[in-house]
């Protein structure tokens, strides 16, 4: 006798928030994507492979600390202070 098993399935829908951040860097505009609805300035620098030793983030015209949360729609500028050559 063929036994057919049935299962009571519950479907979970998971919505992943992806935020798009427009960043001004060295005179050019870049678009970066992050999970969630906000990202720390520290994580933005990490994503751009920059160290806080020589780089920092400006959000809506103000220099922000590394723990500052940046949201989609913020005006973001990343400054990399390291310059090429000498002088």
């Amino acid at each position, binding site marked *: 006798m063929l036994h057919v098993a049935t299962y009571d399935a519950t479907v979970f829908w998971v919505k992943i928030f992806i935020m798009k951040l427009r960043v001004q860097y060295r005179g050019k505009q870049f678009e970066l994507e992050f999970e969630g609805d906000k990202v720390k300035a520290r994580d933005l620098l990490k994503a751009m492979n920059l160290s806080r030793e020589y780089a920092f983030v400006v959000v809506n015209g103000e220099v922000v600390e590394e723990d500052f949360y940046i949201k989609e729609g913020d005006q973001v500028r990343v400054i990399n202070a*390291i*310059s090429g050559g000498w*002088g």
Partner: protein
Amino acid sequence: MPHHRIALCKEHYIEWFERRVERTIREFRMFSKKDRILVAVSGGKDSLSLWHALHRLGYQADGLYINLGIGEYSNLSEEKAKKFAQSLGRTLHVIRLKDLVEDIPTLKEMEKRPACSVCGNLKRYYMNKSAKELGFSVIATGHNLDDESATLMGNVLSWNLGYLRRQYPVLKEGNGFVKKVKPLCLITEKESALYALLSGIDFVEEECPYSVGASSIEYKLLLSQIEEKSPGTKLRFYLEFLRKIQPLLRREEKLELKPCSICGEPTSADVCTVCRLKQRLTLSGKGQGS
């Protein structure tokens, strides 16, 4: 700022920066309020921050901008330098390499050596010549602590004693050279960038296209990694070199300079490097030959 063990608000940061520049000027006896200072301006954050700070500290400082003829990069930096000079109400003297010798892209092709090497020689030559012609007693450049510690690292790795002997924030007047100083030598690149931003200075962020892959950047990144783990390393490396090693090397300095037989600028040879370059250009049918 972990290497100084302080945290500051905007207003106090600007005050701190300017006080630090003033202390550096006094510690190394760079110049006084009576001197006419010519600031070598590139349109970048360091030279504009320097000029801004000197102006705020009450020094008589005008700027010199040398247009290197590197396309859009040079156009943009000249424009920013001019706008900045206007905002300060000070004079910006502008000279163009194309009018005097040739532009950097042409020279780089001709010389077959790194653009930075040709560029550096020409900038130093014309800075010195212009300062004398315009009656300035001091040239100030925007070299910062990251520049100086990276240079030091490079010179130590090759044990280049000639360069190490001459690495000091003040190069005295003499032998046809105008006094040359680096008032930002104890300020990091990040501190300089922050000052520029907080002071509302519009500086060029784009990098010189010829600086890609420069060893100076590699050394700066390496030193930054060490600094992150051990704050204060760069300052200690540079200052202790100046205090302990530089005096020992200077005692043995035997450099003899004389005026170039063509232009009169100081050189250790009979004809200086810039006049030799102009001769090569003339022979190849290029350049102004002046």
